[in-house]
C-alpha cells in the first residue's frame, strides 16, 4: 500500500511548516495551496527543505477542490490512499501511524474518518455542528459515522475519484461521505485528539458555508429518495439483492426487519414518517409511501406500517377536514349531506390537505416523542424480576393486561383469553419450545410437527392459566372449586395438630396454588424457600395470616434447615420444595426423559425427626375450572444411629420422582418447571 499525507492549505502560513515537518516523519507529504495570499518564497523554500511536494492553485477554489487536486496527483503517482489533515495545527500528525496501521489492515476500500474526542475546551458550536452533520449523514446514507465534519481522513484514491461530487468547498467533505457510502465504500471511525488553539483561524464562512451545506444536504436527501441506484465505485461488483433468500425464509426476513434499525431513535423517526405520511391526504398510497420512505432512510418499515394504522379513516381524515374547513370558514363542517361529502369532494380534499398540514407535524412530534420514551423504557436493561409472578413469561404489560381482564371479566373468561396469546408463544418462542420438547416427546411420542405444536400450545396455555390462577388466588376472598384426591393415610396430617410432617411441594402444574391450598390446613406451617421467592411468599403470608404461616429462607443459619427441624420436632408442618437443590448436595434420578437433581434435605429431616414426607401436587383442571389437589401416601424415611448418607436417602427421592411421573401422566398438559 502506498500512502501519502495531503495537507490542503489556505492562509495558514504560520502553522504549515510545523505541521509538514511533523507529518513528514511518517509519510511523504503533498501540500496543496489553495490560492493563499500569505504565501512567501521563504515558505516555499522551507517546504522544499522539508522534502514536501507542493501544488498551488492560482486562486482560491475551496477545500474540496484542493483535495480533488491531491487525489488526481496521487492517482497519477499510483498512490492507494491519501490521508488529509488540516494545516491550522488542530490535528496531531503524530496520529498518522494510527491511520497507516488501519489502512494496512483493510480488506476493502474504506474511508477512514478521524473521530475527534471532544473534551473540555471545545467550542459548543462545534459539538452541535458535529451532531447535526452526523444526523444528516445518517439520514442520507443509513450508515453511521462518529464525526462527519472531521478533516483528518484517509481516502481510497481510486474509489473517491470515481465519485461525482459537486461540492468544491467545505460541503465537499459532507458530500463525499454520503456518496462514498452509496458507492459501496465502507466508512470507519478512528479516534483522534484535537487541539483548538485560542487564536485559531478558521476559513469556515458561517453564512455562506452553512448555506452551501444546507443546499448539499437537501440535494443528497432528495437523491436518496430517488429509487435509482447510486454510482458504484468499488472494483468488486455490487452485491445482488437477496430476494431468493428472502422468499425462502419469509419468517426470518420479517424477524430481521423488525429487529433491524430498532433503537429508540430509529423507532421514533419511523413513527414520525408514519405520522407525516399517514395523515397526509394520499388516500390509497399510504402504505406504499411509508414503506418506501422508511426503507430508503433505513428506518423500521414494519413498525411504521403498524403504527400508521392509528391514522386509518375515518378519524384522522375527518379531523383534518374539520380543521381545514374551520381554517377557511371560521366554523366547523356540521352538515353531512350528499352535497357536502360527494359533490364537493374536491373541496373536502382541499380541507384535508390544509388540515393535515397542521395536524401531521403536530401529531408527528407527539407520537415521535412518545415512541422514543416508550422504546427507551421497553428496551432498558432488564432487572432481576422478583415480582409476584416471577415465573411468568412475557412482559409486565401482559400481566397488567391480565390483571385488568381478571377484574373485569372474572377468572373464567380470563383463562379462556390465554389460548390465543399462548398460541403465539407456542408458534414463535423457540427457547420455550426447545425446553418443552423432551417432556412432550415422552408424553406424546412420535407425533407430527403439527401435533407437537398443538400439544405445545396446550402446555403453554396451561402454564399461562396457572400463573393467572395464582394471581387470582392471591387476592383475599378469591377461591376456586377444588377436586380433592387425598390418600387416606395422609389425611390425618392435614388436619390434626401435633403431627409433624414434611409437606413436599414441586414446581409442577399450578404449584403456587398449593400455597393457598394451605388456607384450608389449619395448622402451623413453616415454609422454607429460596430467598428470591420471598416477595411471592410474603404475599401468600398476607393472605393466610401472620402466625399461621411462617417463612424461612435458605440464607438463614444452616440454610434454614435447623429451624425446620425444630419445627418438625415440635409437631409442626414444614413446607419444602422437593425438586430444587439449594445446596451442593443432590440425588440424581430419571424423570421424563431427563435427569432430575433432587435435594436430600427433606428426606434427611424427616428421617431425623421421625416424621413422614407428604407429597402435594396440584393441577389445573379446565372443564370445569377447578384445582385438583393430589396428596400422595406418606413416605417414612428410616432413621439411623449413624450419619445418613445420600445413597440411603436416594430410594425415597426416587419414589417421589415416581409419584410426579404418575401424576404428570394423569395430567399431561401441566407444565413442570425444570429450570429456574
Amino acid at each position: 500500500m502506498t500512502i501519502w499525507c495531503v495537507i490542503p492549505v489556505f492562509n495558514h502560513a504560520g502553522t504549515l511548516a510545523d505541521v509538514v515537518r511533523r507529518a513528514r516523519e511518517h509519510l511523504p507529504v503533498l501540500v496543496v495551496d489553495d490560492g493563499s495570499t500569505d504565501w512567501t518564497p521563504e515558505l516555499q523554500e522551507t517546504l522544499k527543505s522539508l522534502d514536501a511536494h507542493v501544488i498551488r492553485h492560482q486562486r482560491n477554489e475551496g477545500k474540496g477542490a484542493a483535495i480533488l487536486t491531491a487525489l488526481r496527483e496521487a492517482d497519477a503517482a499510483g498512490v492507494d490512499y491519501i490521508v488529509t489533515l488540516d494545516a491550522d495545527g488542530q490535528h496531531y500528525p503524530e496520529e498518522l501511524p494510527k491511520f497507516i496501521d488501519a489502512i494496512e489492515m483493510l480488506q476493502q476500500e474504506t474511508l477512514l474518518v478521524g473521530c475527534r474526542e471532544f473534551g473540555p475546551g471545545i467550542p459548543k458550536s462545534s459539538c452541535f455542528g458535529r451532531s447535526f452533520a452526523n444526523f444528516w449523514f445518517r439520514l442520507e446514507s443509513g450508515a453511521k459515522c462518529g464525526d462527519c465534519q472531521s478533516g483528518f481522513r484517509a481516502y481510497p484514491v481510486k474509489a473517491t475519484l470515481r465519485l461525482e461530487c459537486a461540492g468544491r468547498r467545505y460541503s465537499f467533505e459532507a458530500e463525499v461521505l454520503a456518496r462514498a457510502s452509496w458507492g459501496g465504500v465502507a466508512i470507519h471511525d478512528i479516534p483522534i485528539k484535537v487541539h483548538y488553539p485560542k487564536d485559531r483561524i478558521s476559513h469556515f464562512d458561517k453564512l455562506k458555508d452553512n448555506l452551501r451545506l444546507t443546499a448539499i444536504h437537501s440535494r443528497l436527501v432528495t437523491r436518496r429518495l430517488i429509487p435509482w441506484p447510486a454510482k458504484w465505485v468499488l472494483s468488486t461488483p455490487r452485491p445482488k439483492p437477496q430476494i431468493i433468500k428472502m422468499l425462502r425464509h419469509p419468517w426470518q426476513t420479517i424477524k430481521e426487519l423488525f429487529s433491524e434499525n430498532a433503537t429508540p431513535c430509529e423507532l421514533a423517526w419511523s413513527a414520525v414518517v408514519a405520522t407525516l405520511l399517514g395523515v397526509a391526504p394520499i388516500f390509497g398510497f399510504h402504505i406504499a409511501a411509508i414503506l418506501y420512505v422508511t426503507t430508503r432512510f433505513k428506518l423500521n418499515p414494519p413498525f411504521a406500517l403498524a403504527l400508521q394504522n392509528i391514522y386509518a379513516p375515518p378519524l384522522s381524515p375527518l379531523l383534518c377536514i374539520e380543521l381545514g374547513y374551520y381554517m377557511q370558514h371560521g366554523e366547523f363542517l356540521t352538515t353531512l349531506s350528499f352535497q357536502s361529502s360527494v359533490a364537493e369532494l374536491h373541496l373536502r380534499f382541499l380541507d384535508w390537505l390544509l388540515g393535515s398540514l397542521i395536524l401531521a407535524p403536530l401529531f408527528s412530534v407527539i407520537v415521535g416523542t412518545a415512541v422514543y420514551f416508550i422504546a427507551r423504557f421497553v428496551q432498558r436493561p432488564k432487572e432481576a424480576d422478583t415480582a409476584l409472578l416471577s415465573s411468568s413469561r412475557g412482559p409486565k404489560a401482559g400481566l397488567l393486561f391480565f390483571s385488568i381482564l381478571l377484574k373485569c371479566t372474572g377468572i373464567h373468561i380470563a383463562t379462556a383469553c390465554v389460548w390465543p396469546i399462548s398460541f403465539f408463544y407456542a408458534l414463535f418462542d423457540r427457547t420455550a419450545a426447545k425446553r418443552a420438547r423432551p417432556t412432550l416427546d415422552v408424553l406424546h411420542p412420535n407425533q407430527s410437527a403439527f401435533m407437537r405444536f398443538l400439544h405445545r400450545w396446550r402446555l403453554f396455555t396451561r402454564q399461562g392459566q396457572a400463573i393467572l390462577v395464582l394471581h387470582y388466588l392471591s387476592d383475599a376472598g378469591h377461591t376456586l372449586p377444588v377436586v380433592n384426591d387425598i390418600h387416606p393415610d395422609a389425611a390425618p396430617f392435614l388436619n390434626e395438630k401435633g403431627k409433624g410432617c414434611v409437606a413436599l411441594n414441586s414446581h409442577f402444574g399450578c404449584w403456587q396454588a398449593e400455597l393457598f391450598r394451605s388456607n384450608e390446613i389449619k395448622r402451623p406451617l413453616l415454609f422454607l424457600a429460596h430467598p428470591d421467592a420471598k416477595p411471592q411468599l410474603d404475599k401468600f403470608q398476607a393472605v393466610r395470616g401472620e402466625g399461621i404461616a411462617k417463612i424461612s429462607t435458605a440464607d438463614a443459619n444452616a440454610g434454614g434447615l435447623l429451624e425446620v427441624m425444630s419445627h418438625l420436632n415440635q409437631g409442626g408442618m414444614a413446607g419444602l420444595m422437593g425438586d430444587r437443590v439449594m445446596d451442593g448436595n443432590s440425588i440424581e434420578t430419571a424423570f421424563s426423559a431427563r435427569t432430575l437433581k433432587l435435594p436430600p434435605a427433606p428426606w434427611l429431616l424427616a428421617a431425623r425427626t421421625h416424621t413422614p414426607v407428604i407429597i402435594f401436587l396440584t393441577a389445573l383442571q379446565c372443564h370445569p375450572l377447578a384445582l385438583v389437589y393430589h396428596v400422595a401416601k406418606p413416605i417414612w424415611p428410616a432413621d439411623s444411629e449413624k450419619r445418613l448418607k445420600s445413597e440411603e436417602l436416594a430410594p425415597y427421592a426416587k419414589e417421589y420422582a415416581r409419584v410426579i411421573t404418575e401424576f404428570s401422566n394423569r395430567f399431561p398438559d401441566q407444565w413442570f418447571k425444570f429450570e429456574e
Partner: protein
Amino acid sequence: MADTDFKTAFKANVFEWLNVDCATPEDFADDEPLFGEKSRLGLDSLDAVELVVMLQRHYGVPQKDFENKKELFKNIETLADYVQNHATKGL
C-alpha cells in the same frame, strides 16, 4: 473455656460422625472454620443438621439451642465450649 481433653474427644466424635476424610482431628486446629468457603472441611447445611442431631443424641444438648446461633458453629472451640456447658450426658 472447654478443657483440652474434652475438646480432643469432642473433635474426634465430630469427625467420626460426619465421616470427615479431608482432614484428621490431629491436624485440624480448634480455631479453624468449620463451615463456609474458607473451611478445609467444607461442611454444608446437611452436615449442620447431622451435627445437631449428633449433639442431641450423644451429649443431650437440645436441638433448639442451635437455632439461629450461627456463632456457635464457627469452630471446634466455640462448639465444644457450648456443648461442655450444656451437655446432660456423654461427658
